[in-house]
């Protein structure tokens, strides 16, 4: 699930990792009680400094998404539906902001975007 992170992005690596996990928890891809990959595993998989993973997990723990149990691993916490909704909304805003920036770069207006979005959603609904 944790596909590749982007070292090019100005967002620090630990924040990228934490964000992915937040989204996963919000979308219920990770259920409460499930254990996340160990620091060693994830660091090796993503080829990042283990300290980066530790920082991501700590941030998530502070926000209440996970719990780090010494010796046992890191476990997903139960998150309320409200909280999940909040997180999804935040994610949506991020996506839209990125989309608008990219559109501005090529000269596409917000109106044209809305049109394209409506078309795409319409197609999706029909499928």
């Amino acid at each position, binding site marked *: 699930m944790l596909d590749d992170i982007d070292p090019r992005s100005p967002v620090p690596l630990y924040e990228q990792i934490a964000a992915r996990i937040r989204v996963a928890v919000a979308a219920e891809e990770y259920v409460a009680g499930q254990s996340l990959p160990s620091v*060693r595993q994830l*660091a090796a998989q993503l080829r990042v*400094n283990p300290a980066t993973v530790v920082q991501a997990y700590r941030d998530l723990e502070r926000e209440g998404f996970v719990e780090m149990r010494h010796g046992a691993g890191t476990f997903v916490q139960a998150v309320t539906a409200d909280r999940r909704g909040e997180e999804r909304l935040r994610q949506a805003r991020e996506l839209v902001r990125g989309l608008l920036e990219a559109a501005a770069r090529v000269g596409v207006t917000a109106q044209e975007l809305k049109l394209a979005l409506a078309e795409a959603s319409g197609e999706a609904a029909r499928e």
Partner: protein
Amino acid sequence: MSNAIEVRGLSYRAGRSFEISGLDLNVPAGSIYGFLGPNGAGKTTTIRLLLAMTRRLAGEVRLLGHDVPREVAQALARTGYVPERPHLYPALTVAESLRLHAGFFQRWDATWADQLQRSFGLPGDRPVGSLSKGEAGKLLILLALAQRPELLILDEPTDGLDPMVRRDVLTAVLDYVAETGATVFISSHLVHELERMCDWVGVLDHGRLVAEMPIQSFKSGVKRIRLTGSPEHVEDAPFAVLSRMAEPLGPGETWVVRGWRDPMRQYFEGSNAAVRDVVDLDLEEVFVELLRSSRQGEV
């Protein structure tokens, strides 16, 4: 001890053209420090000077708190070293090399050495001289890790290795760091590779340290700015201009700047150029721009 490696005023000369003068290095304990630089910058020489394999002209070197070369043997007992080229005796077999090495290091972990040997797929009875580049690379990292060092000094450990072996080597290192919190000093000209794992970078060019800072600072301040026009004056800009280039298609310029923050767009108001785009650079691009501007004496 806050710095695993501390260098002050290191000086060295070789021949007429190569010189290292007044080099300072600080490698924080527990960090993964990427020592970057183009080929010929002096990375290998610096590492040899750190380990007292070459005699320096002046300066101080401390490895894990030990003064080098006075206490170099004690420092080496806690340091794992992977050289640029295999330094083992080619006539010995893999198993014999391991046994020889183990005899010199008190903290040798024979069980783990075995494990690594198996997972790296290194046959014990092959002479070291007959190993392929990838196998030799894996053996070198094996020897350095099985010593259970507090500091790893890796000189281009993955140069010339295929991607699979590179991953094996780097994964083994990251795994070890996760377990022990050891410090890693890794030199490379393959910037992409180090981008993900380093938290500190030091850039060496022509024997001079051009930059040394946490990797976030290194990347985040440097941006490529696309402008719609060509501003005349550049004085009192709140950022440092590393380079300016005209756009290949149509009007405008592309600037590479350091220390950029978003509110600085205002700087361009009133000039004949507006900011069209702000692009993030990856470590390699930052590295190239930094070198280019430092060579021109702008930084």
